[in-house]
């Protein structure tokens, strides 16, 4: 008996829709195995990961968990929406983490260096600076790819470490809060430089989540209804056909990197101007990398990415609650996320291939016809 993959004549709409769910299911099974190997009760562990953070959501007096979920989901969705455009056009931007930090740093420029500039324009300017910073940082691997044909996976990834160390140097060095008791971090932003909360009475979710939803809908509209989205897909699927159509792949590289960089930069400045309220050395908990999983789990569809972003935000919250309740290492979250990406990519095979099990039975049938 052996298992064969048989190419489908058309891609399967059924499995396009099912594959993320199959992947989630397989991740849960593999996660349960992982927890039992760690000596924890797998049912408890999964409860704390996926159910506990959601309890109380429907209780009107206790909506803060939902807000925490939105806080974690906002950067994931913003970044993943940009990455989906990159990945669809066959540009492998792995450096969103760096673009996130670049946006946070560029946007913090105003409140850190000009703390007395306090007008209604402060926050919009910060957001614009953040987007510009992320886009400019993403332009580096784009330029290197177009000009020198370098591999953007490597350059964008390496620039993550440059951005992390640069930020680290800033918050420990020239931007450090003189009254911060030598802790790394800038001064607290003034009130005009803080991103407001959507519904302050219920929880601390900020406008970044709204930006994420707007970005998802806008990019979905571009990808599915507009000429530009068509161009992205053609160049991604079939570069030579794209050239035949008259599309420029060099311009496309810049377009997708700048778009993804701007969205990652926006996520970065929203994070520091929102929940953190100042720039420090650990502004990201790996959002830029987790967003890659979000993008694929959402099938590179911005609307799917909203759902996927909420699911991965849940693993962050669940990781915390499992750590508190069961003493599971917080590294287990990363393992979880890694397994999820693995299963998502594996399940995507089912969209273009079907599995056929060639058993002893088929061979026998063959022989029977042969004898007949």
């Amino acid at each position, binding site marked *: 008996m052996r298992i064969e993959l*048989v190419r489908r*004549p*058309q*891609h399967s709409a059924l499995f396009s829709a099912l594959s993320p769910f199959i992947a989630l299911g397989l991740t849960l099974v593999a996660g349960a195995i992982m927890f039992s190997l760690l000596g924890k009760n797998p049912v408890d562990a999964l409860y704390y990961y996926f159910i506990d953070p959601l309890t109380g959501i429907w209780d009107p007096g206790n909506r803060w968990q939902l807000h925490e979920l939105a806080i974690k989901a906002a950067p994931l969705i913003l970044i993943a929406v940009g990455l989906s455009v990159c990945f669809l056009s066959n540009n492998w931007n792995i450096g969103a983490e760096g673009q996130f930090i670049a946006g946070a740093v560029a946007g913090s420029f105003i409140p850190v260096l000009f703390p007395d500039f306090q007008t209604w324009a402060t926050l919009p300017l910060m957001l614009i600076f953040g987007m510009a910073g992320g886009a400019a940082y993403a332009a580096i691997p784009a330029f290197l790819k177009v000009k020198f044909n370098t591999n953007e996976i490597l350059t964008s990834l390496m620039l993550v470490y440059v951005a992390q160390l640069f930020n680290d140097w800033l918050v420990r060095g020239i931007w450090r809060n003189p009254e911060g008791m030598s802790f790394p971090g800038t001064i607290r932003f003034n009130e005009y430089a803080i991103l407001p909360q959507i519904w302050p009475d219920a929880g601390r979710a900020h406008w970044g989540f709204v930006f994420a939803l707007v970005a998802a809908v806008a990019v979905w509209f571009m990808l599915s*209804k*507009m*000429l*530009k989205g*068509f161009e992205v*897909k*053609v160049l991604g*699927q*079939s570069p*030579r*056909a*794209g*050239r*035949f*159509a*008259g599309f420029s792949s060099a311009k496309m590289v810049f377009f997708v990197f700048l778009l993804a960089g701007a969205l990652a930069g926006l996520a970065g400045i929203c994070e520091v101007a929102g929940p953190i309220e100042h720039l420090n050395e650990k502004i990201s908990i790996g959002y830029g990398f987790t967003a890659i999983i979000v993008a694929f789990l959402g099938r590179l569809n911005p609307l799917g990415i909203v759902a996927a972003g909420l699911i991965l935000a849940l693993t962050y919250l669940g990781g915390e609650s499992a750590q508190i309740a069961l003493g599971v290492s917080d590294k287990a979250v990363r393992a979880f996320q890694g397994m999820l990406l693995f299963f998502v990519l594996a399940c995507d095979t089912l969209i273009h291939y079907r599995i056929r099990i060639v058993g002893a039975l088929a061979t026998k049938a*063959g*022989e029977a*016809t*042969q004898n007949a």
Partner: protein
Amino acid sequence: MSADGNGANLLEVRGLTKIFGALKACDAVDLTIRKGEIHALLGENGAGKSTLVKMLFGSLEPYSGEIIWNGQAVRITSPGVAKKLGIGMVFQHFSLFEALSAAENIALSLDDQTPISTIAAKAKAVSYSYGLPLDPYSLVGDLSVGERQRIEIIRCLLQTPELIILDEPTSVLTPQEADKLFETLERLRSEGKSILYISHRLEEVKRMCDAATVMRHGKVVGHTDPRKETAASLARMMVGSEVHAVVRAPVEGIEKAEPLLEIKNLSRKPATPFSMALRNISLSVRAGEVVGIAGVAGNGQGEFFEAVSGEVKQPDAGTIRIRGKDAGRVDITGRRLLGAAFVPEERLGHGAAPRMTLSENLFLSRYATDRKAFVGAGGLVKESAIDSATQRIVQEMDVRKSARNPEAASLSGGNLQKFIIGRELDRRPAVLVVNQPTWGVDAGAAAKIRQSLIELARSGSAVLVISQDLDELFEISDAIAVMHNGELSKPLPRAEATLEKIGLLMGGAEPGHVEHPLEAV
């Protein structure tokens, strides 16, 4: 000549079946090859010829059925087994390393550790005794396609096979090279060897083969003696219905018509070490005419198409003129807007994006020229307009498909080509440049495509057709030029062009000296 005396069956195939998913690629195929016979295997693309041959050569395993070799039932599980039995194969697409010599390439396919010098000596002996002269120490990269095929044949002969399978051997040869090949095949037959000859060129099958098996849709539809058939009756067996001959009415006064596509001194350096430089190509195509460009594959046709289409621009604006306007420095979209349309050689991945639907593939080449119809304010795509245009083309060109708007990759080659050509014809372009319009397309679809190209020209457009298929060019062209080694000969008017003249030019006779009588060959 006739090998009837040999009589005994070398190979018998009974009820051979191969199933791929839901498709029966070969359905209970019977085939008998006698000793000392040239046996033709005829059929359109997708009829199951390649699948059958692959089962005989051991690269595919049959689902059911039996193979009897020299009176004994055998199982051919791998090409190695086939070689041991005495079955050799010359593939349509060569598997040679360009940077190695002919002898080294031959050595690679032999299992034992024979020194190169011995192989070279053997290869040389075999090559001369069969009239296939070849220097075993020459680099494959320097050889012509015909010479490369000789290496493949000699490699096959060195294993002293009883049965030699040739897959479309003449599709890459000039007529003169093909004649040489036929002599070799006749020589092999007279030695009692058998040949399974796969071809869709009916004239050469009639001329050489002792028996023919015709396949259609995976089934054998007939065993026949091709010498007693006509080309038309063989074609009918292959296609299953009457193939309409292409009608080409000659045009009057074409010399006075205005040239719509002008190419002046087009040169291009090779883009990669293995691509061809273009040298000083000049050509003009007038309104109302079809000009054909013949040539053996790999002589610069692909590079020429890229330069004319604008996928690669020229430094000098006047090099390409479309409808009297300089277009050399304009990209492919700009050239389309000037009224030109293009159909590249490769359908999947170049002319069409394989995993996109037909309507998306229509949009692919026409989003700029039909911007008013297909794109609304703010870059919004008008899907319903594109969809109705798609269905119009599908009807016009009789494209057969499984769903209303399927992915391009799910169509058969012929149907996709009809769609791609139809997509451009639907625009009524003033200039149409087509590379290999009917490559790998079944006879019925090919006839439809050829007729539509002629009709486009007769309605006042200029049509430039690049093709390796000489029969096709003779059928549709008003003038034929030949591309060889990156150079283009002067176009010969159809009335003056003969197979011999064109063949000599394809083999590299001086361009520009075609007026000299060459019929002597």
